[in-house]
């Protein structure tokens, strides 16, 4: 049996940039395969080059060395091929919820009215029913993140990168958003590349977890998370298998520090 074609194939990617007089190697010799339809997470401490890596993956930046390909999605430039949800929600305060969700589609050339109609159709599934015409200033933190997520997913990319989407939420909202995201992903089966510095979150959500080292960023450990799905938070985080995986990650982190 041959391995399935990965959604994204990253080979020996390095990126160095100048910061004043010194050169900073943000990412060095990184290789990852992101299988199609899988939930893949990159975990790492702050300033480990995660943001640099994401910029490379979505084509906003180019590597100094190495290649990034999307074999399942054909050849060509990366820019516009990968859905990207940045850390900040970046909702436009002058657009209502529907208008914000439609931003991505409009950038793809969909007419504003049609884009709004498509966004409206998904409001209920994203827990935004009844808030279609609210402005971002009227929403809670969790709802803002759901609008940003809808904006990302509506573009219909094969790969969606989510950069610490729940980082600023309180613990309860965070837990319900994680459960919601898993549900949504199981229904739609897009490829998700998730970034977080929270090990519990990474293990609970993912099929594969890659651990990055501090600068220069490299993948130092890759773990298959073979916990059964659908997962329930309470059951998962108390299970022996979960804690064994967590111990391996923590051990590796301790060694890197």
């Amino acid at each position, binding site marked *: 049996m041959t391995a399935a074609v990965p959604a994204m194939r990253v080979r020996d990617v390095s990126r160095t940039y100048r910061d004043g007089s010194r050169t900073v190697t943000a990412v060095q010799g990184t290789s990852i395969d992101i299988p199609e339809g899988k939930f893949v997470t990159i975990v790492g401490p702050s300033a480990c080059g995660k943001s640099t890596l994401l910029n490379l993956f*979505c*084509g*906003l930046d180019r590597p100094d060395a190495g290649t990034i390909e999307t074999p399942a999605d054909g050849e060509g430039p990366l*820019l*516009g091929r*990968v859905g*990207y949800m*940045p850390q*900040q929600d*970046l*909702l*436009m*305060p*002058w*657009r*209502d919820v529907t208008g914000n969700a439609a*931003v*991505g589609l*409009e*950038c*793809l050339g969909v007419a504003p009215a049609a884009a709004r109609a498509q966004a409206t159709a998904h409001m209920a599934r994203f827990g935004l029913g009844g808030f279609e015409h609210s*402005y*971002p*200033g*009227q929403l809670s933190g969790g709802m803002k993140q759901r609008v940003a997520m809808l904006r990302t997913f509506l*573009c219909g990319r094969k790969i969606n990168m989510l950069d610490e989407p729940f980082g600023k939420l309180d613990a309860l909202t965070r837990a319900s958003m994680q459960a919601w995201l898993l549900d949504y992903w199981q229904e739609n089966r897009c490829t998700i590349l998730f970034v977080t510095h929270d090990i519990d979150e990474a293990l609970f959500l993912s099929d594969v977890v890659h651990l990055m080292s501090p600068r220069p960023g490299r993948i130092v450990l890759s773990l298959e998370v073979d916990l059964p799905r659908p997962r329930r938070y309470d059951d998962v985080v108390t299970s022996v298998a979960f804690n064994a995986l967590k111990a391996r990650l923590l051990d590796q982190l301790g060694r890197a520090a």
Partner: protein
Amino acid sequence: MRAGIWPPVILGAAILAAWEAYVRLAHIDSLLLPPPSSVARFLVENAGIFARNGLNTLSELLVGFVAGVIVGLGLGILMQLWRWFRAAAYPWLVATQMVPIAAVAPILVLWFGFTLTPKAVTVALMCFFPVAVSTVDGLGAVNPELLRLLHSLGASPWRVMKMASFPSALPRIFSGVRVAMALSVVGAVVGEWVGSTHGLGYLMLQYENRGETSGLFATVAVLTAMGIILFFLVGWVEHLVLPWRRYAKETL
């Protein structure tokens, strides 16, 4: 503004009352300082004259204001899109504001005669600058992360301008427009002083020459009222155009 209309009305009435009392009790010559009551009487008795001339000034002012705002917006957008132009033009735009407008106005009369044009041009010369500066500042202040997001979605520079830069700059642009509106009253009057046959500025010169101090004060009152109404009209338009500002705690 939400505090209501009463505080300024009460303060204004108190000042007028004190003024009236001072003039009467100290027997001030009404040629030097007329009491508010005689200014008011003059205003009512000559309402037709003030309405006609006020309308003249208002039309000059509005033509100049609209032209100034359009030019200011255009220059601001151009300076934001084209760095070289910004570097080249910015010092010269500042220079235009250093030339005293009272010195330029006679030249404009020389060129355009006793028509509406020199007054409108005077107003526009004063208006365009705050709008241009606030447009450049506003367009440059967009969240760079938002720009990156739009680039990752493959948006063209024009779409980025339309979708993100311009709307996010609008509150700042409106601040510039409000300043421009306040300046335009001054511009129109200066334009009329140097050469006109009607308008509130012309009226002021007439009353001054005839020693009708009440008329002079009445004209100033009309001008002030016009300026205040126009200023708040701009605020009202801003409120209509930017409904989201009521909810935005932070600018993006």
